[in-house]
């Protein structure tokens, strides 16, 4: 017996409290699936939505508790340093939960209208959110990859759930193939990093790179390059952005919103954590490459956006150019750059979710032409004003959160002495503004007597709009609290 007890496997200590947000989400997903299997007639949209919202709110309170723990006791890690609990991961947890609440509310009336089964959708949404949280908090490349797959697999199905529409299936197929493609890049990169540093744990990688001078770092460079390509696919940075417009256009609008906001934010979370945390010592190697990516992404996104005539495609390209701004902040390799990137992602999430809430309400066919919005300013002035504010915020007009975000990105770039990139970022904002103004003009400038559309706005969507527009203006006028929040959320890699 004594000998045997020594052989008993002793697992790493697990901080269950820190895992609670993900577990609540997954538990809710299981609950929805279980109830829908046992009592299919009871599980209307209402039950799934309410369960999702309750789970998100509970997880939100847990995350707030964790945040205050981290602020008082410092960051920690759990499960053999595989999962980090720091300001960074909780920042993204809160962001993801906010996106979850908004998407659940938007999807509620959308699914009802389009006749899609709610329970499966919400279960997948919850799994995908849990995956995103894992991605943002992973201290290990393999765990990060698991989170990424959980996020993506949920998304593949959610995109295709509109089974009667061929565009949705095409879109899902495209996303699946290219997503799998990018995953192989990531995996190969992880393998090469493991080969050159002897571990997949980010803490170990960082310590190793800080201590060892390579005689020959080809393997490491190749690994970093492949990881960069993989992440660029996920955040839709040029020249790895080709999937985005088609997929965004074909997917159901709430899912597009989820992809443009949370999937992108989670991609950037992993990006920042790996490159700032683990590869910080080698930032002179990757920063110029990221600068080139940022340049390409900004220009491609804004120039292509003005050539579109489909609103969803317009916003897809605009979402690409917004990834460019975040990359401008990332390439500055400073803590100021990280907090600028976090601030930008947080505010952009609100803008894009609000925009796709409106797009979802305006109709869901595969085509989403600009003409559909003609005269909205006259027929539904409040809705048009909400959309205008969200669009102008994305254009970076002052007194909206978008401006403060751009301002910080520019400040980060100037701090890194990348004046040229800062100038390119601002000029592409002007090009992008042309596209947003086109939508605004379409809504407001109509010939006399023309009737505008009057979409039905479900109250859940109205809540999302009030929240996103209110937050956009609030942060635009008094941004101090969010700046501090982002500054406290710089990633810290710590051995558990």
């Amino acid at each position: 017996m004594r000998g045997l007890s020594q052989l008993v496997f002793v697992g790493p200590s697990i901080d269950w409290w820190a895992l609670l947000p993900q577990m609540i989400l997954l538990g809710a997903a299981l609950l929805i699936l279980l109830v829908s299997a046992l009592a299919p007639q009871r599980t209307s949209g209402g039950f799934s939505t309410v369960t999702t919202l309750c789970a998100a709110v509970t997880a939100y309170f847990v995350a707030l508790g964790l945040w205050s723990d981290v602020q008082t006791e410092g960051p920690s890690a759990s499960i053999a340093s595989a999962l980090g609990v720091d300001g960074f991961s909780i920042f993204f947890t809160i962001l993801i939960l906010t996106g979850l609440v908004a998407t659940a509310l938007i999807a509620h009336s959308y699914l009802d209208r389009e006749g899609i089964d709610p329970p499966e959708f919400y279960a997948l949404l919850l799994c995908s959110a849990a995956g995103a949280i894992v991605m943002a908090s992973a201290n290990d490349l393999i765990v990060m990859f698991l989170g990424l797959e959980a996020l993506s697999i949920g998304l593949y199905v959610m995109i295709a759930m509109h089974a009667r529409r061929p565009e949705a299936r095409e879109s899902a197929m495209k996303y699946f193939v290219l997503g799998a493609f990018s995953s192989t890049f990531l995996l190969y990169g992880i393998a090469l990093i493991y080969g050159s540093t002897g571990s997949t744990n980010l803490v170990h990688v960082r310590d190793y790179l800080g201590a060892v001078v390579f005689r020959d770092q080809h393997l490491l460079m190749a690994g970093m390059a492949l990881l960069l390509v993989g992440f660029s696919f996920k955040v839709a940075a040029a020249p790895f952005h080709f999937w985005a417009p088609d997929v965004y256009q074909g997917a159901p609008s709430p899912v597009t919103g989820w992809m443009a906001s949370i999937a992108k934010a989670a991609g950037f979370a992993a990006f920042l954590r790996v490159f700032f945390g683990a590869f910080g010592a080698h930032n002179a190697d990757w920063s110029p490459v990221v600068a080139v990516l940022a340049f390409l992404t900004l220009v491609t996104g804004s120039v292509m956006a003005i050539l579109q005539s489909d609103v969803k495609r317009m916003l897809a390209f605009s979402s690409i150019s917004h990834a460019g701004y975040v990359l401008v902040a990332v390439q500055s390799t400073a803590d100021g750059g990280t907090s600028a990137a976090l601030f930008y992602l947080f505010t952009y999430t609100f803008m894009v979710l609000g925009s796709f809430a409106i797009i979802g309400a305006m109709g869901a066919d595969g085509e989403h032409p600009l003409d559909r919005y003609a005269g909205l300013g006259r027929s539904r002035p409040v809705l048009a004003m909400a959309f205008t504010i969200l669009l102008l915020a994305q254009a970076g007009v002052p007194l909206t959160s978008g401006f403060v975000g751009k301002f910080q990105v520019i400040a980060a770039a100037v701090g890194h002495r990348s004046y040229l990139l800062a100038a390119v970022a601002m000029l592409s904002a002007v090009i992008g503004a042309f596209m947003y103004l086109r939508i605004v003009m379409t809504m407001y400038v109509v010939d006399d007597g023309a009737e505008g559309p009057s979409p039905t706005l479900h109250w859940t969507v109205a809540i999302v709009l009030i929240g996103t527009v209110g937050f956009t203006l609030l942060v635009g006028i008094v941004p101090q609290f969010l700046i501090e929040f982002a500054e406290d959320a710089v990633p810290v890699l710590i051995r558990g």
Partner: protein
Amino acid sequence: MGAVAVIELLASQSASSFPVLNAIILVPVLGALVVVLLPNSRPEMMRPVGAVFASIAAAMSLYVMAQFSSHDAGFQFESIQSWIPALGINWHVGIDGISLWLVVLTGLITPIVLLAVDPHHEPKSYTAWLLLLQAGSFGAFLALDLFLFFVMFEIVLVPMYMLIGGWGYEDRRYAATKFFIYTMAGSALMLVAIVSVATLSAGEQGITFDVVELAQRQALSTNTARLCFLAFALAFVIKVPIFPMHTWLPDAHTQAPTAGSVVLAAVMLKLGTYGLLRFGLYLFPEASVWSAPTLATLGVIGVIYGAIVATMQKDLKRLVAYSSVAHMGFIVLGIFAFTTQSLEGGILQMVNHGLSTGALFLLVGMLYERRKTRAIEELSGIQSAAPIFAGFFTIVMLSSIGVPGLNGFVGEFLVLIGSYETRRWWTIIAATGVILAALYLLWAYQRVFHGEPTATDEATPDLTLREGLTLAPFIAGIIFLGIYPKPLLDRIEPAVDGLIAHIENHSDYERPSPAAPVIVDHNQLSGDDH
């Protein structure tokens, strides 16, 4: 008696503690919110309610003018509140002799325009946008923090864009977008420059966006300062607009509704010249001196080019728009001549241009209301049908030409006299612009008001009392400033002198010493005779 004492007490208290400049900015915003919350069933209430709020702001700007101490070169009524401490940004507002009259102008124009011009549809959003435009313009003229200035400088685009797009004429979509994109493109690089100036001047004292503080630090190297100046200048050159960046202006002016044109001409163009003074000359004295020949040249080109192109216009509103290009060129010449008189004249001319061009746009708008056309060739002989209208038009036109006795003369004369000392050839060429202004305006007047009236021209109704009353303040200002500009110049001069002294301290520029009076010694003369 007691009431007077109470009022005096309040006045003395408020002068020291009440943040009147913040109130000036916020009252129109409040007004816009109130107008938005008014019931849609009462469309006739919108403009009067809006005008009340705009008038309160105007009254406060007059109060500031009354309380302004005229021999103080520094900023008065200053107010600093911490805004975004994480980035070193404060809500810092203040007023000096350079901004004082522009603030008063902004205050007075908006209520007049609100009451004078009927939007014909959607009066609620129209009123709200005009009020926000007023608030943003106030903010831009009062801001002493670069971040705050940039916010205000950009935010005024939105109401103007909406006004052009919502209430403009046939090509409004194109004009509004062009206006927005042009101006935004200009300010894009300015934002990079703002951040660069603040970051590079940070040093040990920490980052700040405070204009006064940055102007004192002067921490940038010569080349960096010049680059930053160019980025600032580009934004303002587009806003003024200075040739060759002016192409948005005729479109925007022509397509904008009358109220938009008036505010655009009277207030928003001044943001450009004001920005050159406050942020160009004040923050980058050396770079301003370095670039002065180029900018003065562009200004003079604008004077001549604007006048020539205005002569050839077939559209009355476009003609006035090009005359703006010419007038603003004068102001730019005055600014970059760096003498007390030229700068004084430039600032005075900003006010003058606001009055005369604003009134011209109002008159053209009234003519359009009557005739539904702006084409010069479709109008003739209006004088006989509408003599009072023609009379008002004559006064405003003569002011715009710069006839002595009216305000335009004083400003142009000061600019010419002041610039002659430092930029002789530029001044001589610009002076011909005065003659050209007479040419295009008188010719247009002749074609529209003289000649053989057709039947429709005969039927053109004359000014109503209401329209006359809206124009009266403009006419009063035009005549008053023409005869007695001293109150304005007294308040402008200390600030201008301080600015030139600042430039002299931080660059190798020296203003020409006043010519020594020639003392004729008669004895000596007679002695020589012998």
